[in-house]
């Protein structure tokens, strides 16, 4: 069983690597935010799998910290992570289109 958990963890780590590619290629701030979200969720899953593989329950606490951090970092990013653009003409127009 331990080997299977390791394999699944390896697979998810490769997923994280692919997400890193998105950060590297992404042009907008929102793209990078997405990758951080991916890291939070996938990282939690990897840690749970590693704790199953080794039987070490301390890793679950780290998974808990990851889960909390993903939320905090996301909110901090949305607050500070971009030039504060007030609703300009174009976005007003976009909102108007929705009506």
């Amino acid at each position, binding site marked *: 069983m331990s*080997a299977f958990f*390791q*394999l699944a*963890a*390896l697979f998810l*780590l*490769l997923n*994280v*690597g692919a997400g*890193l590619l998105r*950060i*590297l290629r992404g042009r907008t*701030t929102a793209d*990078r935010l997405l*990758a*951080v979200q991916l*890291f939070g969720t996938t*990282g939690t899953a*990897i*840690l749970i799998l*590693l704790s199953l593989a080794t039987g*070490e329950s*301390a*890793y679950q*606490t*780290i998974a808990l*910290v*990851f889960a909390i*951090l993903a939320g*905090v*970092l996301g909110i*901090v*990013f949305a607050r*500070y*992570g*971009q*030039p504060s653009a007030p609703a300009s003409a174009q976005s007003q127009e976009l909102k108007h289109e929705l009506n």
Partner: protein
Amino acid sequence: MTLQLAFDVVLIVTLVTCAWAALTAPDLLRSVVLFIAFGLLLSFVWVRLQAPDVALAEAAVGSGLTGALLLSTLNVMRQKEAQIAQESTDAARESESEQEVAVAQDS
């Protein structure tokens, strides 16, 4: 055993790529995001080295707290820069108008 080795190799390759990208990123914001990602990956390294307490500290302080602080610093820096740019354009405009006044008095 080989699976663990494969995990470690992938981890190290991703970690080093991430570190390199963070150092060479063209803008600071991307650097900070990559730094946070680097911290998360580094905490996996600590897990693999069987040091869960260090991993916990790395995730919470090294990645989360430092990342948030860097971001808010970046924000303050941007505001200062915008302020300075604003002041310099104001100053330029003022000196221009002074010159105009001087020209008007001359004639």
